[in-house]
């Protein structure tokens, strides 16, 4: 164990870093930004660490003077057990809710405000959400696993309900009537029988604090939950929830009036660029600082294998990063190349095997099978490649550290920076400012850690931003995998047993957040051993096969330290890989048993929600009920339909893809999609539709185009030419979303679920169109032409 004062790293003299003079880039805009940050902090938080000790006990039975004492103008310190840490009513009557996750642009804050407005009976426009700021919100895990509503909204819902209950108590005392006789409308509490007797939330508590406790399960992150005395509303009582309230967070993006993290300017900041080895796993032999001496103000900053250049002007930092001469010491380890990665996986030893699902007796069923069908599928490494490389700013002082980050887990950024610099996390404040796209752990987690180290080493405020190759070659990757599926059929074609095994790189060789420097490039470059985390996943669906075995096997990482192929979470982690395989295999079974692919799924996915979902899809998608690949096709462009279905975190969904294949060029056009989507209660239908649409298109890009390329030494996909993604000509002509609203069921996630059904639906449609199975992603023109040339392989390997 290290004590807070002990550095994680042994003392090592910095070779080139030295004190740097202060810059002169102080702009009015930057100053105003900083002032705004300060004032906005002050607006919503009364900075006081004294901590008000609330009167014990809550709810009915308050003596009026006790209640008066409890309501105070002092805000208790940030603590999950304090109602005031979740919700506040301002002096102007506006309600502020404090959200410890972040909205990455899917309109989550709108849905949250709808939920809070309903629980509190206030107008929707009166609710604002503060998100991701580490000194005013609790660590709810940041954006994670698409549970912003499912898990993240829960404490806000309960806190709002509790606030309403307490406000009713206060009104009851003030008006001298029983609280049961009161009604609330738009933040005004009145006596039902005599509406002239009324009092507003604003009058009761505006600008003051409840100083009331809630029950907390003592957990942080996604599992954080609170319990309150109040009973939240029943779905039948919702008024704002269920409406398509328009987004309020768009205009700043469209009129360029707001800021992304890369737009933050702090007076006196230095610009930095990281210099990372072109050769995976290489270490620094020597750095020729004189190679950049002609660039004004450019300096080298180095600590062991952590290497950067800094300059007063951004262009000079960029130029220096390109011009700096470094001798790299080549590693012994070689990469297998992307062309041989699946061979490598097949041969690699297994670090860990886990059978996540076991039902019945699979081995016995295979012994008595009349027919066994099996197939294998491949999915490549993929990159986040966010729209812009990550950017972060850090201001490290002895007693106070500030970071500005686009990481989707800013509380974990704070913890990681504190650990990296061996300081108390309480002196670190994380300002979350949206970055250029985030779908998991992309390069933002490293950028914020890099910025903190650079600020410490230079003694200056440092802004670091990546170049394109930092975001494409050096971001954490989604793992490559192979998947083996086999099924045992009886003489009537009934499935007796189903076995599915993935063999793959870990889903997260580095954690999905940057709370521990062992999981960051800077930590590894400075000598901390990588943790090489191990895990994968299995298919999620509701097939009622009598005998099932779902397992995964994880193989060793390619390069253990600071690898450009280290893995972590990317939008629906391992969901695309697994269901590309499992849902194609189900289609192969339908084909083998001469069954329509939707009918086949209906036969085995027997829960009422799955049944209604698949029937709605069948009805609304223009699906032709037939066995796959029975229609004769003429001409160079052939058409096909394909279906896929899955579960994710309680959400159930199914999709139909209607595609065109140009057999001359190998181009697949996913022309029309229909998605049937059941995520329980729908909070905001329009927002949900858009979330589904965007997730679908992102997944379509990964299905058709994306593959990280690497030779024996380095990742060679470094930009948009070498890592192509979907463009607007390849986007679907239409996406029809069928929402299965279930007000009686709690809401579950929607931000990622759709992604996992896209790959198999496209591959199944490709089979329908061509009679050829595409068992390796991506379904790029090159792979399509290869597959078509290889000829008709309409059935999977079967044996009697």
């Amino acid at each position: 164990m290290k004590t807070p004062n002990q550095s994680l790293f042994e003392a090592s003299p910095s070779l080139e870093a030295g004190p740097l003079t202060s810059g002169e880039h102080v702009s009015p805009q930057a100053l105003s930004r900083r002032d705004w940050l300060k004032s906005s902090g002050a607006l919503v938080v009364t900075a006081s660490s004294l901590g008000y000790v609330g009167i014990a006990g809550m709810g009915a039975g308050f003596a009026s003077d006790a209640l008066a004492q409890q309501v105070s103008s002092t805000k208790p310190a940030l603590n999950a057990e304090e109602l005031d840490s979740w919700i506040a009513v301002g002096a102007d009557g506006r309600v502020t809710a404090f959200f410890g996750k972040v909205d990455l642009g899917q309109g989550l804050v709108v849905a949250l405000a709808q939920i809070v407005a309903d629980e509190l009976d206030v107008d929707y426009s009166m609710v604002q959400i503060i998100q991701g700021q580490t000194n005013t919100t609790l660590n709810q895990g940041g954006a994670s696993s698409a549970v912003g509503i499912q898990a993240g909204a829960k404490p806000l819902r309960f806190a709002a309900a509790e606030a309403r209950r307490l406000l009713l108590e206060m009104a009851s005392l003030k008006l001298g009537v029983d609280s049961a006789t009161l009604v609330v409308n738009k933040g005004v509490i009145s006596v039902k029988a005599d509406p002239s007797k009324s009092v507003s939330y604003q009058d009761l508590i505006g600008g003051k604090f409840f100083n009331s406790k809630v029950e907390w399960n003592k957990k942080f992150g996604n599992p954080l939950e609170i319990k309150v005395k109040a009973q939240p509303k029943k779905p039948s009582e919702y008024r704002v929830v269920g409406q398509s309230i328009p987004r309020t967070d768009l205009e700043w993006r469209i009129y360029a009036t707001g800021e992304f993290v890369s737009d933050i300017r702090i007076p006196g900041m230095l610009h930095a660029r990281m210099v990372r080895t072109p050769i995976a796993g290489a270490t620094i032999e020597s750095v020729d600082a004189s190679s950049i001496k002609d660039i004004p103000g450019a300096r080298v900053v180095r600590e062991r294998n952590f290497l950067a250049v800094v300059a007063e002007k951004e262009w000079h930092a960029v130029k220096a990063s390109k011009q700096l001469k470094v001798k790299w010491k080549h590693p012994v380890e070689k990469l297998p190349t992307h062309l041989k990665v699946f061979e490598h996986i097949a041969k690699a030893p297994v670090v860990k095997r886990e059978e996540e699902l076991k039902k019945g007796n699979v081995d016995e069923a295979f012994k008595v099978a009349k027919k066994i069908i099996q197939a294998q599928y491949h999915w490549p490494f993929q990159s986040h490649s966010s729209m812009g490389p990550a950017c972060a700013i850090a201001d490290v002082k002895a007693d106070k550290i500030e970071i500005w980050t686009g990481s989707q887990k800013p509380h974990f950024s704070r913890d990681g920076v504190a650990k990296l610099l061996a300081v108390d996390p309480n002196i670190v404040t994380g300002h979350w400012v949206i970055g250029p796209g985030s779908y998991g752990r992309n390069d933002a987690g490293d950028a914020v850690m890099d910025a903190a180290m650079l600020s410490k080493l230079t003694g200056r405020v440092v802004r670091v931003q990546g170049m394109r190759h930092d975001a494409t070659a050096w971001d954490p990757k989604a793992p490559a995998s192979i998947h083996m599926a086999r099924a045992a059929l009886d003489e009537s074609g009934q499935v007796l047993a189903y076995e599915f095994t993935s063999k793959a790189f870990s889903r997260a060789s580095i954690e999905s957040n940057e709370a521990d420097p062992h999981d960051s490039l800077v930590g590894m470059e400075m000598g901390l051993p990588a943790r090489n985390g191990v895990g994968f996943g299995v298919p999620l669906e509701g097939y009622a096969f009598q005998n099932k075995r779902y397992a995964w096997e994880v193989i060793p990482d390619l390069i253990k330290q600071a690898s450009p192929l280290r893995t972590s979470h990317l939008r629906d982690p391992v969901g695309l890989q697994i269901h590309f395989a499992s849902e194609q295999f189900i289609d192969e079974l339908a084909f083998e048993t001469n069954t329509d692919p939707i009918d086949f799924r209906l036969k085995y996915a027997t829960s009422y929600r799955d049944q209604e979902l698949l029937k709605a899809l069948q009805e609304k998608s223009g699906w032709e009920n037939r066995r796959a690949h029975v229609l004769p096709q003429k001409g160079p462009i052939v058409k096909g339909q394909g279906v896929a279905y899955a579960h994710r975190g309680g959400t159930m969904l199914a999709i139909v893809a209607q595609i065109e294949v140009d057999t001359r060029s190998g181009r697949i056009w996913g022309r029309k999609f229909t998605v049937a989507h059941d995520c329980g209660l729908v909070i905001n239908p329009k927002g949900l539709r858009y979330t589904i649409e965007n997730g679908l298109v992102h997944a379509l890009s990964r299905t058709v185009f994306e593959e990280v390329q690497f030779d024996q030494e380095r990742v060679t996909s470094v930009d948009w030419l070498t890592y192509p993604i979907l463009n607007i000509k390849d986007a679907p002509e239409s996406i029809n979303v069928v929402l299965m609203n279930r007000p009686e069921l709690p809401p579950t996630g929607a931000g990622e679920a759709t992604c996992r059904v896209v790959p198999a639906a496209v591959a199944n449609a490709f089979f329908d169109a061509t009679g050829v199975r595409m068992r390796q992603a991506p379904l790029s023109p090159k792979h399509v032409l290869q597959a078509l040339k290889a000829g008709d392989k309409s059935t999977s390997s079967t044996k009697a």
Partner: protein
Amino acid sequence: MSITSFKVDGLNVQVDGDPQMPLLYALRDDLQMNNPKFGCGVAQCGACTVQLNGVPIRSCAVPVSAVSNQSVKTLKSLGTPEKPHPLQSAFVEEQVTQCGYCINGWLMTAEALLRKNPKATEDELKEGLKDLKCRCGTHVSILRAIKRAQAKILTGAFA
């Protein structure tokens, strides 16, 4: 080092420095403008798009000296919430963005496209927009919004 003079959004500006520095850094670092974004630095994504004499260019790959004495227009002067360009109001109405980092490129490119060819067909629009990237997958709503704006412009709703 040398001084380059040009116009940005109607204002005369001067930038002192390396004439080979890309225009993007002059706009972002010297002039402290936020609207053109750094996306790739190699003219592959469009996030940095501005218009030079009315024609969309990738400011990350054009040296600042190349715009000397010319007129650069950025998203800042396309419209305001009070007086929006039809594309901007259509993007708001269609609730287009996810992260929104790419939107500058789509707006500045689509504006020039519709100005040059107001009756562009869907295929012509796609052809003119195909070199822009969006990583969040909002292409479908982007096209909806551009077609909505086109209809507004054609019917004179924004004449």
